[in-house]
């Protein structure tokens, strides 16, 4: 029903008219798709291996020992070397590598010494390597992917909790409202950075990296949902006292029906305008935490971690900070453009039919 509403249609139409925001949105949507299939573009595994008249697709398959392709080791194949080997042999065998043939975690130091190398087309390190000889483009690529998914997950979780509690406070009022108001006042005064430091000093080092990321996300969400409740609480309270709600109640509509069919759809359209800005602040927050060393656990690729390296090697390897900074600026600008356009086109003050 929400989609068919002419107000919503009008807003979407207006959003598409704001070219800067609309193209930014298309770009971000495209970026998310590309990032989702990133393993096909930026990967140390080959896209295709043709070996003794059989085709292999290693990208999404299990690891293959070198012996599978006639090599003399049984750990994972180094496909770049395999490609070179096949080329030398001049046989029918060949390897097709992705455009960026590195993964973000490997240290590619042919000389055996970890050091930043400058951008080069010959080595295929298009943006150079970082201080431990990891490909910067690969790290930026996967760092952006994690930052974006992390921020979107953060936003969804914050909104889910904030909407539920804020709406319940505004709707039911009374003791429930009072208790939560006091609780939120106390809760939102707990210093967030200390909590992160404490939590990560307490959890065992044996935790896997995904588990640590989920814990980080949880802590961030737990200390961020409160701001959402202020808006939801007042908006729900305002909607609730309007006559169309009284009309629904007179015909016998239940609280559940009133909340989900009447109040939420009317309140959420404004909430949509906050979403891009929440994503922006989440990207900034996670980058800042990474920069300080309290964010995503190493060796997860991240923009903040690259920035940290980059500021330390500002003179010797300026390409590190330049590419990390450039990526961050582009990302934040794009999401902010979307946010502006959404706010411009969804602003209820512009489209509301009430006084």
């Amino acid at each position: 029903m929400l989609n068919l509403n002419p107000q919503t249609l009008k807003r979407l139409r207006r959003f598409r008219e704001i070219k800067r925001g609309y193209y930014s949105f298309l770009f971000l949507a495209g970026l998310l798709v590309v990032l989702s299939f990133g393993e096909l573009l930026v990967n140390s595994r080959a896209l295709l291996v043709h070996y003794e008249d059989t085709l292999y697709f290693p990208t999404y398959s299990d690891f293959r020992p070198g012996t599978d392709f006639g090599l003399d080791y049984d750990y994972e194949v180094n496909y770049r070397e395999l490609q070179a080997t096949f080329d030398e042999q001049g046989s029918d065998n060949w390897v097709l590598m992705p455009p960026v043939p590195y993964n973000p975690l490997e240290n590619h130091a042919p000389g055996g010494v970890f050091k930043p190398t400058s951008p080069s087309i010959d080595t295929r390190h298009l943006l150079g390597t970082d201080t431990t000889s990891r490909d910067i483009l690969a790290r930026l690529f996967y760092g952006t992917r994690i930052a974006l998914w992390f921020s979107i997950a953060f936003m969804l979780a914050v909104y889910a909790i904030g909407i539920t509690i804020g709406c319940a406070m505004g709707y039911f009022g009374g003791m429930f409202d009072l208790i939560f108001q006091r609780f939120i006042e106390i809760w939102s005064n707990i210093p967030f950075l200390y909590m992160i430091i404490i939590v990560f000093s307490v959890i065992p080092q044996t935790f896997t990296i995904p588990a640590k990321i989920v814990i980080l996300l949880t802590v961030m969400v737990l200390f961020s949902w409160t701001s959402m409740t202020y808006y939801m609480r007042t908006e729900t309270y305002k909607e609730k006292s309007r006559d169309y709600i009284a009309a629904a109640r007179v015909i016998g509509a239940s609280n559940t029906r009133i909340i989900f069919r009447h109040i939420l759809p009317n309140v959420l359209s404004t909430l949509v305008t906050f979403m891009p800005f929440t994503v922006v602040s989440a990207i900034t927050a996670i980058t800042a935490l990474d920069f300080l060393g309290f964010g995503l656990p190493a060796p997860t690729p991240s923009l903040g971690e690259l920035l940290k390296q980059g500021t330390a090697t500002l003179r010797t390897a300026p390409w590190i900070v330049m590419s990390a900074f450039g990526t961050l600026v582009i990302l934040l600008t794009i999401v902010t453009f979307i946010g502006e356009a959404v706010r411009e086109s969804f602003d209820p003050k512009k489209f509301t039919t009430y006084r």
Partner: protein
Amino acid sequence: MPSSVSPKSAPILKVTDLKMHFPVKEGILLRANKSNKAVDGISFEIQPGETLGLVGESGCGKSTLGRCIARLYEPTSGSIEFEGNDITKLKGRALMPYRQNIQMIFQDPMESLNSRHTIGDILEEPYIVQKIGDKASRAKRVRELLNIVGLPTRSITRYPFEFSGGQRQRIGIARSIALNPKLVVCDEPVSALDVSIQSQILNLLVDLQKEFNLAYLFIAHDLAVVKHISDRIAIMYLGNIVEESTGESIYHEPRHPYTKSLISAIPIPDPHRRVKREIISGDVPSPINPPSGCRFHPRCPRVMERCKLEAPLLRTVADHQVCCHLDDL
């Protein structure tokens, strides 16, 4: 209490000493020390198929009274009986059968329709909520309702903002009769409309009353609106009913000083009227700190010493119920 319509039948609605006091939160601690006595001890009855007009200045508690009866509020004290059953404190599921019988029309039709729902959604909702009929039969009923209130069938897929004020109020009226109620609280249903449209809506309400034997509690801030359609009229002042009688009698022989001033304020010259102009001065006092004794005393042209100390009770004078100390009413 005598009724001009059908004195012997049982009332459909009986309200006894009804009070609705809203807590007033003040100070930094937001303690509710005071209360807004919006409705402060009101009693009346409505017979089946009858219209009781309720008239009073803005802010005197008319809407609050109407909303108590539609059970949007839970009254502070007193009782509301519908067909002999006490519904004053009923909640949730227990209230459902009465929801079908008691409906409400609101003052501002735009405010009372959800702008995100189509007219079809709005008119179908009562049946969905009360679990009446299936999709097809509900759709048929919605078309019937539109027909009854004089709107085209194609309105079903339209949204409230696509209609004029009068048409929106027709939608509000259609929703209020969807469940075949016996009593409809009409809270100033024409006040927000153009004068040219008011009489159309009033006529529609009168027609519906005849067709479906509806009883109305018809709220207005203007005596002229209710005069023609009300069997009886109650005059309200600051949370109390100060006078009640038949429409004709209130209009031509008002007894209470406040009613007299209301009648004399109607500008239309009427050769049969025997009321001299009595303009009252001053503003309506706050229902948070109502005047002592008779609540009308600070503005009453005939105020006596007794009025400031002692609140008058409703008493019968001829065919009127009047709440005043004066002997020569």
